[in-house]
């Protein structure tokens, strides 16, 4: 928040209208980015902590179903997310006089879509950790820094190199952040963009959940539990 807020403050001192607009994109973008980042990290590290502490066998022999485990970790992650976003929102207001609530109720559905996308990415990461073990841990953090520039969190994707723009267009995060910039510009929420983003998020969740189930089956079939005993 401090980093991006300071950049926003600096950019905002430039061209009177464009600078203010860019600083709004930066501040709103980083707060909403925190939603997807935190939701992804919370769920991914939930499993990673079980592997770090070698507790995964303890979990797997209990009657807890896989969906219950993931649901519990996601729910716990939402608590951490609520705390994190609250701190960022208050910091933005206190340090940079940016009141994100002025963007209106449209923030809520955008945040919800980003939350779901974060979970979907975490399912991919969990699946890779189950399949490849500790070698895939870096993805828990690293993958988000690939998604971030491609999603146009702080800028329209027209600013991306041409070769990357098709990739950006298929990400469900891209229309969500585009809708967010519309709110920063003072426009009403673009429900079309949001619907497109939500459909992409649902498809991504379905795909990633299927991948996770598949990787769990591989984990059991190949006896990878012995990595953690």
């Amino acid at each position, binding site marked *: 928040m401090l980093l991006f807020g300071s950049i926003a403050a600096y950019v905002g001192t430039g061209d009177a209208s464009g600078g203010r607009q860019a600083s709004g994109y930066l501040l709103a973008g980083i707060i909403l980015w925190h939603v997807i980042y935190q939701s992804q990290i919370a769920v991914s590290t939930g499993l990673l902590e079980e592997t770090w502490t070698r507790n995964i066998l303890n979990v797997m*022999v*209990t*009657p*807890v179903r896989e969906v219950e485990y993931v649901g519990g970790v996601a729910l716990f992650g939402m608590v951490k997310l609520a705390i994190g976003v609250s701190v960022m929102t208050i910091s933005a207001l206190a340090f940079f006089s940016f009141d994100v609530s002025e963007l209106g109720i449209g923030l809520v559905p955008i945040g919800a879509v980003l939350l779901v996308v974060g979970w979907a990415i975490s399912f991919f990461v969990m699946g890779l950790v189950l399949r490849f073990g500790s070698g895939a841990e870096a993805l828990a953090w690293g993958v988000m820094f690939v998604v971030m520039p491609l999603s146009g969190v702080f800028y329209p994707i027209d600013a991306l190199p041409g070769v990357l723009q098709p990739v950006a267009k298929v990400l469900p995060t891209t229309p969500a952040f585009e809708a967010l910039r519309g709110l920063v510009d003072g426009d009403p929420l673009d429900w079309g963009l949001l619907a497109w983003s939500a459909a992409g998020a649902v498809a991504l969740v379905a795909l990633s959940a299927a991948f996770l189930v598949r990787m769990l089956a591989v984990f059991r*079939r190949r*006896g990878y539990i*012995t990595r953690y005993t």
Partner: protein
Amino acid sequence: MRDTDRAHSSVGDTEVVLEARGLVKDYRRARAVDGVGITVHAGERVALLGPNGAGKTTTLFMILGVVAPDEGSVEILGRSLERHRSRAAEQVGFAAGYLPLTERMRVREYLRMFGQIYGLVDPTAQIEAGLERFRISHLAGAMGTELSSGQRTLVGIVRATLHRPRLLVLDEPTASLDPDVAMRVRTGLREISEEEGTALLVTSHDMSEVGRLCERVVFLSQGRVVADGTPEQVARDHGSGDLEGVFLPARGAPRGDRRPTDGPPDMSTTANVEPTTPVLLAGPAASWLRMRAIAPSRLRPDS
């Protein structure tokens, strides 16, 4: 009547708690488990024995549902583990010396959490009874980080028994315990088995412990069941006075060998190597060679 028949007939009319049939598990380098079948009845205390690499832990993991068998099936109280893993797991407890405790919780909190996972709304009474049974009530307020490895093992056993499982699976339960504490564990486990009808399936390298705790021994070698009966019978079939001798296969496989096929001779196995082992290789060197011979490879995947 053979000892095996007696051991089985004494439990023949009791409920089958565990039915594992034809379990096969291949890892990339070798076959870890090769057609293992085990039936355990309520209240029965069964030891799963074998040298390193014999397939004991892989078999346990298949029975616990954390490793999927390539062939065969596992049923817990008639429920297929493959189709009803969660319901079946409700009836099973598992403890092992290598299982960690959550370090940032007190023992009481840790046990409460696991009790609730197993459906106990308020497990306070079960926690107190379990801690008392294994004489570690004084550890209830201790943090996980404050416990010795032996104390962690004891807490793990209490945790595994909180929900009064019908089947208690224990992998090397006394491996890190002092003799007096190990005896306390054996006493506690016998009580649980006799008072609650809990079936025990135990792996151990301590043959004296097995003799004192278990009434039946299933001996694995190279992924196969090669002996199944009372400790006395398994020792006798092996031509040994006690179970310790079963680990030293100087006279070949036990007569109860149930290998399904007679393939080409395996030059890495005991039967082929042992006769050429110089008699003067005494002490640790001889033991090491014998263990290497009976367990020619470690069968863990990717370890």
